[in-house]
């Protein structure tokens, strides 16, 4: 896995606008895809502007080895992602991948995936992967509003999906962590995988600890290189400051120095 990294010109073969803030790019590799694991990410070069100097990291959303494509779920946030949102089929994109570690393979079938906002990105790939291991996880995904609820059919192929929206226009009203699945006295899970905003992941981590459930989270820190040399994306762990781009992005919550 460590000797697997590529810098390639990938070709845009699909563009799906999920809603005004999110889109999915499908990218075709020029040669056989390297082995990619759920939780790994790609560093995308945004050319043509002095303010988008560094690459942008995105979780790998899905992998299709038969078609030699990967997909990235992207939230439009700043100039870099606005530029990417203007890409068209046939355009090429310089991508460094696959980077970082991955979610661990669970030793239980009682698995819960929790994703909020753009943090759902690696969970579709993870649920595909779990499906191949004959595991059907429960998947709780949170969105701002009905308009942003997307790809539920895809998730439903691999797991039992529960939706929240901040405004209650679809699924249960509230944040992901407000979902009734978390309100039970005993949560019927032995493993939780989580990705989303920091505050949400910290709440999920607290719940996991309270219920003594093993939990992994995928962090998103500001990074320059993405492959372990700049030491900018560090997070404090039980082994000191570790690199989110190499030792992460996935960490077991027991290792993080979270408050």
């Amino acid at each position, binding site marked *: 896995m*460590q*000797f*697997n*990294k590529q*810098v390639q010109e990938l070709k845009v073969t699909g563009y799906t606008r999920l809603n005004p803030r999110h889109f999915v790019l499908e990218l075709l590799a020029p040669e056989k895809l390297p082995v990619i694991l759920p939780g790994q990410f790609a560093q995308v*070069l945004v050319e043509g502007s*002095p*303010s*988008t*100097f*560094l*690459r942008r990291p995105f979780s790998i959303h899905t992998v299709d080895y038969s078609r030699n494509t990967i997909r990235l779920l992207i939230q439009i946030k700043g100039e870099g992602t606005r530029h990417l949102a203007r890409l068209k089929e046939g355009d090429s994109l310089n991508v*460094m991948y696959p980077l970082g570690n991955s979610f661990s393979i669970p030793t239980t079938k009682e698995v819960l995936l929790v994703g909020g906002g753009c943090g759902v990105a690696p969970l579709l790939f993870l649920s595909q992967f779990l499906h191949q291991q004959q595991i059907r996880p429960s998947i709780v995904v949170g969105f701002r509003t009905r308009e942003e609820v997307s790809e539920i059919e895809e998730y439903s192929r691999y797991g039992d999906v529960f939706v929240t929206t901040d405004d209650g226009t679809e699924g249960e009203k509230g944040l992901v962590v407000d979902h009734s699945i978390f309100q039970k006295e005993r949560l019927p899970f032995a493993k939780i995988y989580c990705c989303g905003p920091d505050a949400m992941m910290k709440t999920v981590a607290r719940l996991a600890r309270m219920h003594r459930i093993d939990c992994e989270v995928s962090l998103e*820190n*500001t*990074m*320059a*290189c*993405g*492959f*372990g*040399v*700049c*030491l*900018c*994306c*560090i*997070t*404090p762990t039980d082994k*000191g*400051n570790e690199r989110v781009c*190499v030792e992460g992005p996935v960490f077991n919550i027991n290792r993080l120095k979270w408050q």
Partner: protein
Amino acid sequence: MADLSVNISGLTFKNPVTTASGTFGYGDEFTDFIDIGRLGGIFVKAVTGRNRDGNAYPRMAETASGMLNSVGLQNKGVDHFCREIYPKIKDFNTQVIVNVSGSTVEEYVEVAERINELENIPGIELNISCPNVKLGGMAFGTVPSMATEVTREVRNVYKKVLMVKLSPNVTSITDLAKAVVDGGADVVTLINTLLGMAIDVERRRPVLSTITGGLSGPAIKPVALRMVWQVHKAVNVPIIGLGGIMNATDAIEFLLAGASAIQVGTANFIDPQISVKIVDGIDAYLNKHKINKVTDLIGALRTE
């Protein structure tokens, strides 16, 4: 095929392209992407006397044509370097130079003595220019008398090629270059990062945990070139130039300004293969201009 080799204070570099400390780890992360043996040399991450955790997150801010960092010399100390890192890098088929830093003169001396014992490390680069540590670092690099002192003390114990990396955060770069040459430096490296800052207006807070940090990338290239040019005219030791080099053309500019070799820094983050591409680009330039050896470019700027 032109002769790309350069001689830096008795050390032969197979070409003038090296990588800047702090942007290349200990080299091992790059073996996924390039053959390190194609480079003239590598400057590995700063080594200090003891373990340093570095600064708190956030440590990085992207800026126009560059980035600010405040890593703060995170490393596991010289013992760990000699025991764990050195065996992994000692047989790279390139010149491996160790960047040495500290908070006190004694710490610089201690680290230099330890590195002096490592057979396959032919030189050190004294880092008296890191803007991201509270004690030492840049403090030594901005006052000429202190720069002379730390260089002299290290010179007394260090027997191989002694390079000193200069800070651009000074009024007169030539005064500092002369100060370290007086202290016994064989080579000067310039420039380290420029002190800068970034502000998040929504939160009305600095972006970096340390408020200020070091600016690198193409944004600083004109400043770096000017300083290399000034130092080239002021001192008589080889110069290793860096600051915003993104391609072979940038590298050639530094050679023309007077650098005998160059370091690729921040560009490694964006394209880990860039250093090798720059070697090829310099070769292509020499062939195109029918220049037989790269040393003919060093300081060859025409100003009349």
